[in-house]
């Protein structure tokens, strides 16, 4: 029983790492632009399918395709940004409609190119298991994704707290009018945020392809999950996003272990609603603060 619980907690922790890598990109763009990019999950999915195409069509290790995926996802993100920046009225609402539509277009493009089948990596290294502390099992891919995700998120956290562009992101996030009147060029900072979100989406896409399974409808699922985690954390706190993602991962894992896999999503939703009921601004929200 104890071993089973520990394994469930460990699996939940690893799943939280995936979720957090997806959610941080969404939170970063929201913090900078006050826009919820509902196509973010589809950008993650695009990266996953680039990995799939590299492996099946060209027979290369998916990791070798990361630079190509970065260019493709970065370009797709730049297009999303270019369209978003043309919205001058009621941006918060209109951007939801625009990015939702772009997400549908991306999903259908993926569907028409790669069909609706479920795919995962065939590279045995990713699927091999490792044993940690004699009792905890995990796939190599899961551990690599968790560690890589943590390193990337730590990098984004450092960037936000210690670089000038990061400080400009926080300034824009907390007081856009004052920041621009202090000389911050909002366009430049927004583009930078989108590109960093694209980097995170690319990594998350590769992590999901190598450690889980991918299918065209997954993008929407990822966006919803990332949105829930971002709101749960309190719109914009990166350590909060990580903790929120791990909470969701753990509760889902415990539900699968002790109740039923069919209740997994419901358990995450209940946690989300309970947190919002107790603390409407989320676990770490209230200050519209990125990074801290």
């Amino acid at each position, binding site marked *: 029983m104890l071993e089973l619980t520990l394994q469930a907690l460990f699996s939940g922790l690893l799943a939280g790492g995936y979720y957090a890598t997806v959610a941080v990109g969404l939170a970063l763009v929201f913090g900078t632009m006050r826009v919820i990019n509902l196509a973010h999950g589809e950008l993650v999915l695009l990266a996953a399918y680039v990995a799939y195409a590299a492996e099946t069509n060209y027979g290369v290790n998916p990791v070798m395709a990361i630079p190509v995926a970065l260019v493709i996802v970065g370009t797709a993100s730049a297009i999303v940004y270019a369209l978003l920046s043309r919205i001058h009225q009621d941006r918060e609402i209109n951007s939801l409609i625009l990015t939702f539509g772009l997400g549908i277009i991306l999903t259908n493009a993926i569907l028409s190119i790669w069909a609706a089948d479920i795919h995962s990596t065939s590279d045995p290294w990713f699927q091999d298991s490792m044993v940690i502390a004699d009792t905890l099992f995990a796939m190599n891919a899961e551990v690599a994704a968790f560690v890589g995700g943590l390193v990337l998120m730590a990098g984004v956290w450092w960037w936000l707290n210690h670089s*000038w562009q990061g*400080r400009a992101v926080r300034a824009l996030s907390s007081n856009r009018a004052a920041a621009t009147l202090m000389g911050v060029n909002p366009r430049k900072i927004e583009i930078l945020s989108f590109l960093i979100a694209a980097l995170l989406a690319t990594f998350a896409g590769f992590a999901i392809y190598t450690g889980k399974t991918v299918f065209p409808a997954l993008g929407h699922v990822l966006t919803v999950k990332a949105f829930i985690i971002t709101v749960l954390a309190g719109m914009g706190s990166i350590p909060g996003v990580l903790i929120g993602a791990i909470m969701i991962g753990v509760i889902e894992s415990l539900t699968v272990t002790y109740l039923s896999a069919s209740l997994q999503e419901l358990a995450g939703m209940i946690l989300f609603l309970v947190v919002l009921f107790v603390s409407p601004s989320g676990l770490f929200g209230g200050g519209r*603060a990125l990074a801290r």
Partner: protein
Amino acid sequence: MLTLEGVQVNFGGVQALKSASFSVAEGESIGLVGPNGAGKTTLFNVISGVVRPTAGRLDFRGTSLLKLPEWKRARLGIGRSFQIPRPFGHCTVRENLLVAQRFGAGKKDPKRIDEILDILNLRDKADRDATTELALTEHKALEVGKALATEPSLLLLDEVLAGLETSSKRAFMERLAAVRDRYRLAMVIIEHDIATIAALCPRVLVLNFGQIIADGSPDAVFRDPEVIRSYTGETTLAEAS
């Protein structure tokens, strides 16, 4: 330094500014007064780039501001504070100033930041969280400090003394005078307290219904019957009382 000619701003059917024309010379201090809704903040918004004028000309040191975004105007030397202080989230007081200096003035000069902290009496709060650990006077001082850190030559101060007690207001006024003299700035100050304006500014502009109705020394302006009418609805102070 700054010239406005025939500047108009329409919000739908409402004319917020009607053909405003005036200029500000280098190092000049001007008080901008008028009843609520007269168009004072709109005028600041036009100069700083938050609002685009419907018509008119707007030049700063020979450069037309009309097509420049806010951040370029800041880099040209137009600094601005806001009526309601809102520091950058979860940054220290020093970080707020450093961000303003880095992006507004395009450099990192810790000595100047220390000088600003000293002149605004914020040195002992420099490493405090600006969002949660400052009193109102300190928030107001930080607003001025952020604008100063961009190294402006023209400073627009929007009701920076509002909400302060009389004693704090006096001390704050002295700091503003010290700032102006130290950095040889031109200043335009929106303020409702006439005594404060008279003490700080040798020239006063009065706005009413989006129009400049008086421009001159505080003595002359506050005796002007049209100015008195704009505040009281009556022609003279005697009638008003």
